[in-house]
């Protein structure tokens, strides 16, 4: 799928409604779990609050704040009309002009907008209709370009992981390791990296790093998630500072088996729930059924943004049917009482015959000599 084909699909969905236009909104605070409808419509990753207006004829106008960032927007989106503004709502008012109150407007991303901005938008156009599905449904499948970027992000993730193995040592703080890893991935060409990393003798979960100094015997769990040109890819890994006990090795093998079951279940026509169920089954068979639910586990994977995060979570309540060119994480990432939390996951793209990992080397427990 090309970007243009996706935009045509979005326009077709818009035409099928009674809406005259869709306003895609984002506040510029990028987060792995917050979809960005502006990126879906334009490919532009903003510094500040931003909006893209798509009309039924297919024309897109991008309101960019701060105004000094407009030239970058024009460079990235040559086919889009750029409207520089220093206040998003003032910019929108100008773009919508006399149409405000006369046309039917849908909004995507409104629910995640900061209240201060969203309330002003609601004051401007009180009858805005929710239109997230118009923008995000056609973005369930990644474009060819997004998939290429995901592959590059994966390459960077794997190189970053090797760097982590090279530098992690007792005495280093989690923060130092996470910050170094993020910086290193930028040196490899990523513009950002969601490095969720922590360490301890018995991790209850993976959590943001803090100032704790790592110790020999710690297990480091990390999600390394670089973004290349706005497309995220992730690998989930587990490392031991020292020699791994046999029990830990055995349990890690179990989690890897669970992941492999997830890959096997991820075929076109299956649902995300099926993938989750297949991973759960491996763990349930070993007596870990009660750990297959919150608070031990919320999901077994997720879509990868920053644009759309469809097809959503690999979770029992997600009935989304898998289609080729969907991109999502398959990660069992399981807490086990004997070992603590174990991270194991790969980015997967769905092909006609099933899920393919984008990684060159799949998760295996690594020991760092100390």
């Amino acid at each position, binding site marked *: 799928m090309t970007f243009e084909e996706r935009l045509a699909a979005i326009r077709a969905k818009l035409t099928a409604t009674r809406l005259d236009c869709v306003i895609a909104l984002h506040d510029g605070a*990028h987060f*792995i779990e917050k979809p960005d409808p502006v990126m879906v419509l334009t490919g532009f990753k903003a510094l500040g609050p931003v909006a893209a207006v798509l009309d039924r004829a297919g024309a897109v106008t991008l309101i960019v704040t701060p105004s000094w960032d407009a030239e970058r927007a024009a460079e990235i989106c040559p086919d889009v009309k750029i409207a520089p503004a220093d206040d998003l709502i003032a910019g929108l008012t100008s773009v919508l002009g006399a149409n405000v109150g006369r046309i039917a407007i849908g909004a995507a991303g409104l629910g995640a907008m900061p209240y*201060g901005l969203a309330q002003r938008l609601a004051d401007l156009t009180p009858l805005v209709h929710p239109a997230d599905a118009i923008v995000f449904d056609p973005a369930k499948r990644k474009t060819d370009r997004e998939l290429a970027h995901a592959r590059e992000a994966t390459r960077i993730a794997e190189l970053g992981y090797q760097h982590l193995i090279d530098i992690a040592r007792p005495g280093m703080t989690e923060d130092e390791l996470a910050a*170094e890893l993020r910086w290193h991935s930028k040196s490899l060409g990523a513009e950002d990296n*969601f490095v969720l990393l922590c360490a301890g003798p018995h991790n209850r979960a993976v*959590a943001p*790093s*803090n100032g704790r100094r790592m110790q020999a015997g710690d297990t480091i769990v990390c999600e390394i998630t670089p973004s290349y040109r706005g497309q995220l890819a992730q690998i989930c890994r587990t490392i031991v500072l020292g020699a791994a006990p046999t029990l830990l090795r055995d349990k890690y093998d179990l989690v890897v088996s669970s992941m492999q079951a997830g890959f096997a279940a991820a075929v076109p026509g299956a649902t995300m729930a099926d993938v989750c169920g297949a991973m759960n089954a491996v763990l349930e068979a070993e007596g870990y059924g009660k750990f297959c639910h919150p608070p031990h586990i919320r999901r077994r994977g997720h879509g990868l943004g920053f644009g759309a995060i469809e097809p959503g979570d690999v979770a029992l309540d997600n009935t989304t049917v898998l289609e080729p060119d969907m991109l999502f994480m398959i990660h069992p990432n399981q807490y086990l009482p004997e070992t603590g939390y174990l991270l194991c996951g790969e980015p997967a793209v769905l092909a006609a015959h099933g899920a393919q990992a984008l990684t060159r080397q799949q998760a295996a427990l690594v020991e760092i000599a100390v």
Partner: protein
Amino acid sequence: MHTMHPTLLVGPADWDPQHTPRRDYEDRLATLWRDHPHAVGAIVHGNSRDHAALAYLTHFTPKLEAAVALMPRHGEPQMLIGGGVNMLPAAKPLTFISQLAPLRDAAKTIAGWAHRLDAAGSLVLLGGDAMPYQLRRAIDDAFGNVATLENGDAALQARMRRKSAGELRIVREACAILGDAVTAFREAARRDKGVTDCILAAEHTALRRGAQDVRSLFSLDEGRTFRPFDVTIAQRRDPLQAYFAVRYDGYWADAFVRAGTQDDPLGRQAKMILEAMLAEAKTGASCRMLHQCADMSRGTLWPHPLIEETFGSSIGLSLDEPPLLSGDCDTVLETNVVYSFRAGLFSGAGAVVSAIVLMTERGPELLWPAGDPS
């Protein structure tokens, strides 16, 4: 100053009572209650981008998801942390607040807490405009008749603007880290490194010096426009125009800088404008006057688009503390406030330079660049 917001804040953010004792937070809270004499409690929201008020009152930096501090006038505060119960241990070192709970059913939880305060007074809401629209509406709905919400942002911002001695120690360290980062940037440029290698050299230096965060922008078109780091760029630029913002223990310091090996007449002119402005920057000086001073120094050259609307701001727990400094406002410079001043010009190419100045009772003190900017 807008920079690209990172998807996760990964730098050191633990609360260190040696840097900011618990007593300082108690004093800040006491001031909050004085500013809101009828309030029985405060609801303080922060997310990874907008959390200056939360950091000021609790030290907490929401690295991953949003957090809400519930601070009663009497009794122990508690903090609701986004991300579920398993995120609580990682959050604990980031604040002195010991009662942490997951941020679930936020509106209902917050309204329940307010109800238990069992008083007819109002509640101060801080950071409410940065709440997600749906959450804020849910809170408004949940509150119904429970209590009145009083927006406390402006009053707190005025308090936050004036820095205590302890805060200034942190700001000075942030400026020192910024200085080292800029030195690394210039050294890389002097050694003919590519554009992003120069940027990365500065960022790495700041991180290794203990920066909590570092942001950057740079120009590929002779200072005309600025852009965030996107992909690596091996090309060189001389002069190379950049912007760095460094955060240390919550507090920001920022700088527009230029580096290169050749003569830089445009950069020199921008520096002269900055110096002219700094010469007039004293407690009580008005923004209008400083802007006029910059205008006169610039002569017939255009102002740089980046500083056309605002030529600086107070800086601290957020990069742009209000008020923003602009030529059409009568804001005057205040004692114990740290300002980031910017000067720039545009003539096809562009140049922007900056300085960080603390207004003291004895006069202005240049915090960055160290010593005389000339």
